[in-house]
């Protein structure tokens, strides 16, 4: 089961909103599908990003996947631990392996995302 304190995208990313700031990561399903992650190309702090824009990439030994931003706003922080220990994305996708934070322009965008139950159905189907 995935945590139900946050929202999900069909690209298997999660978004956790706290005080107007969205923390973004990938789900355990995405991490497992990619296999051992060895590098994450991140956006930069200060970047203005738009919903569903490609802002980076996630590289595993075997494959590369685009990193999407599921909300609009300004990047205010990136997870500095990922550079040295990208395996955190595999081992702790929902907490220590978070990727970056966006100060949202419009919190209503959260309503477009799936809740844990809806995302669970995607995984089940």
């Amino acid at each position, binding site marked *: 089961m995935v945590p139900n304190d946050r929202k999900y995208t069909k690209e298997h990313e999660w978004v956790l909103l706290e005080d107007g700031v969205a923390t973004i990561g990938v789900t355990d399903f995405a991490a497992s599908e990619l*296999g051992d992650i*060895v590098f994450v190309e991140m956006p930069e702090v200060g970047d203005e990003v738009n919903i569903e824009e490609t802002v980076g*990439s996630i590289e595993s*030994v075997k494959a*590369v996947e685009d990193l999407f931003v599921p909300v609009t706003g300004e990047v205010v922080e990136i997870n500095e631990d990922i550079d040295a220990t990208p395996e955190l994305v595999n081992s702790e996708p929902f907490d220590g392996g978070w990727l970056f934070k966006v100060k949202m322009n419009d919190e209503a965008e959260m309503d477009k995302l799936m809740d844990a139950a809806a995302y669970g159905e995607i995984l089940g189907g």
Partner: protein
Amino acid sequence: MSKSNLKKTPLTDWHASHGARMVEFAGYEMPVQYEGVLAEHAIVREKVGLFDITHMGEIYITGSGARDWISGLITNSLKKSDPGKIVYNAMCKADGGVLDDMLVYCLEEERWLIVCNAANHAKIVGWLEKNLPVDGVAMDDQTDNIAMIAVQGPVSRELVQRLDTLADRADDIDGLDFYTAFTHEGPGGEWLVSRTGYTGEHGYELYLPYADAVSCWEELLAKGADLGVAPIGLAARDTLRFEVCYCLYGHELGEDITPLEAGINWAVKMKKKGGFIGRDALLAQRENGVPRQIVCLELDGKGIARQDARVLVDGKDVGYVTSGTFSPTLKKALALALVEKELPQGELAVDVRGRHIPCHTVAFPFLAARTKDDPKAERSLS
């Protein structure tokens, strides 16, 4: 292609029921990974791993004309191929492009085995048939009857010696040099024990009847538990071969790449008696200057250059990446690339989805193979 249309090896169901992630590979349902590619890679470098490579093609050639006929189709010489000897080869078209790379076993003077890549199996069978009939040469494709288990890693010899079937062959296994093999009568028919592999480690490839595959696999896992043995997927097979710079067909080799460009000149014997298909084209290429070569690249920036990424010098296209990944042993982003032979001076980079990542050439290979060394020898990573 749905999984129901895929060919199975005798071990496919075993893999699927023991946690492997299964994928389509060359028409077979194969395990791409078990625990994870980094962990599996380390097991083979440090201990011993098992690979199901039953998808490989096995074609027997028999008869009094076998030796000369095979020789005319391959780049390397069979002059020193006494029974038990193995030779690595390319099979070329007349224009020098590579149809496949393969092992050629001399089992007896009039009984030979060609082992080709699964993805090229149908093409190679067709090519061989096209070059028949010839008096004194018979061909027998046994691909669907022969399983193949690779046992690779520093303690692989000890593990293979523990197999009940090979209990009385311990001395023969000790005496088996790199690129030699012996046959043995197993429970379900003939086994072939071969000191070969695709990992750069000391290792063996066991050819055995389908009927013996599951029992052999399970016995290796049970008897190797104290040695740290584990099943390994195809993803780690690729990273292992990549680090020691073994060519992979479809990457460093192809119909549009000659063996001279791929850097396997040591397997091309231009002067051998009788010649071979493609010789004239390769000779001309050597005399006129080989236009491209495979080089080893190390990336100086973050990112991974994968197959087909362009290689640039001061922004000018000079070739492309044939294989690239993160090296689990060296912990660096590395790539093999097919580039112009005479690279212009300037800033070398790879184009990774529009981002130019600086890189530099490094010595071949990235990591030295330990296939001929004492199996317990320490590897220098310097």
